[in-house]
């Protein structure tokens, strides 16, 4: 073990972190002087300094390197191939904007108009005979078709309508509104729906 100086102005631990800046000549003059006086008395830190210098010199003598001469030819060939590549003008199918603008609202309006017309027609056919369960189911089925059509149109417009929302917020209220003109007994469709659901 190398003997350390008994009363150095700087400790060996302090010196440790200053060796590289010292080698690069980046220390303040006072700090560099203190370090030099420590080194004069401390063979261990002097040996560390020698290693730090050796590493710096060693790194600086590592040469810059040339790639293989063919590399530029390979890049030129790649560049030429890239230039020659024909970019296909194929785009994913999307309806023209003008068509998109009116098709979906028109589809929705037509479906709702159909639903309304059916409801009014049934209302003015008095005296209305009490509908059978089969008729109620048929009416519900028609309402479902109409709503399914709306749903499809909505999906085409990239609107996500979750099934549970559709069921709770659209199907049931619509079914209930259809039920009233069809049957004086309230809750038949709802009951039917709930029975089916369970």
């Amino acid at each position, binding site marked *: 073990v190398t003997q350390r100086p008994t009363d150095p102005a700087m400790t060996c631990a302090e010196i440790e972190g200053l060796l590289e800046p010292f080698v690069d000549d980046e220390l303040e003059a006072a700090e560099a002087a203190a370090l030099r006086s420590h080194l004069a008395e401390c063979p261990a830190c002097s040996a560390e300094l020698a290693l730090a210098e050796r590493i710096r010199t*060693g*790194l600086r003598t590592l*040469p*810059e390197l040339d790639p293989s001469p063919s590399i*530029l030819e390979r890049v030129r060939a*790649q560049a030429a191939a890239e230039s020659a590549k024909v970019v296909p003008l194929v785009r994913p199918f999307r309806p023209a904007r003008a068509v998109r603008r009116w098709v979906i609202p028109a589809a929705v309006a037509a479906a709702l108009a159909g639903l309304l017309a059916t409801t009014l027609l049934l209302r003015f056919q008095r005296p209305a005979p009490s509908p059978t369960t089969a008729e109620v189911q048929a009416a519900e089925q028609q309402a479902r078709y109409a709503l399914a059509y709306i749903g499809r149109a909505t999906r085409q417009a990239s609107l996500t309508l979750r099934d549970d929302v559709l069921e709770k917020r659209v199907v049931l209220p619509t079914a209930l509104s259809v039920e009233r003109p069809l049957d004086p007994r309230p809750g038949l469709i709802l009951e039917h729906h709930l029975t089916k659901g369970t």
Partner: protein
Amino acid sequence: MDFEEAARRHQRRVYTFAHYFLGNREEAEDVTQEVLLRLWRHCDHLEEVMVEAWLLKVTRNACFDLLRRRRLPAHSASSIELLTHEPASREPSPEDQAEDASLSRQLRKALNELEEPYRSALILREIQDLAYHEIATILELPLNTVRVHIHRGRQRLREHFKEAYGDAATH
């Protein structure tokens, strides 16, 4: 900017960085080819004064991408190879040559095991002789941080040497 002229002028910079960073000649060639192709694609938008920093930044990123692709640490004993392009700039004695070759090999190995950003900082500063402000641009770090990284990187190499070679490292 003329691609041919820029590629000829800077390909050495690109390849040197990639080689020391990756420790593998074939991979360094692949990265160089990829980077020069990017230069070809962007040369119309690059100014000569900024092209070297741009290239080295792109090279470093391409090296990171390659390391991610091979999902291995940036070093392995097998990837350290003898550099066959080393120029003989002086006429050293056979003893000097043997010692230099040994130190050079040890340094390349140690450098290849050094973590980032110390490795990049040391390659750019000590091997490629770039100024602090140029390195700061490439690494996108403040100037003083670059200075600290360079000192700390060499300090780590010193610690590595002492661990690997014991007292022989300091004598």
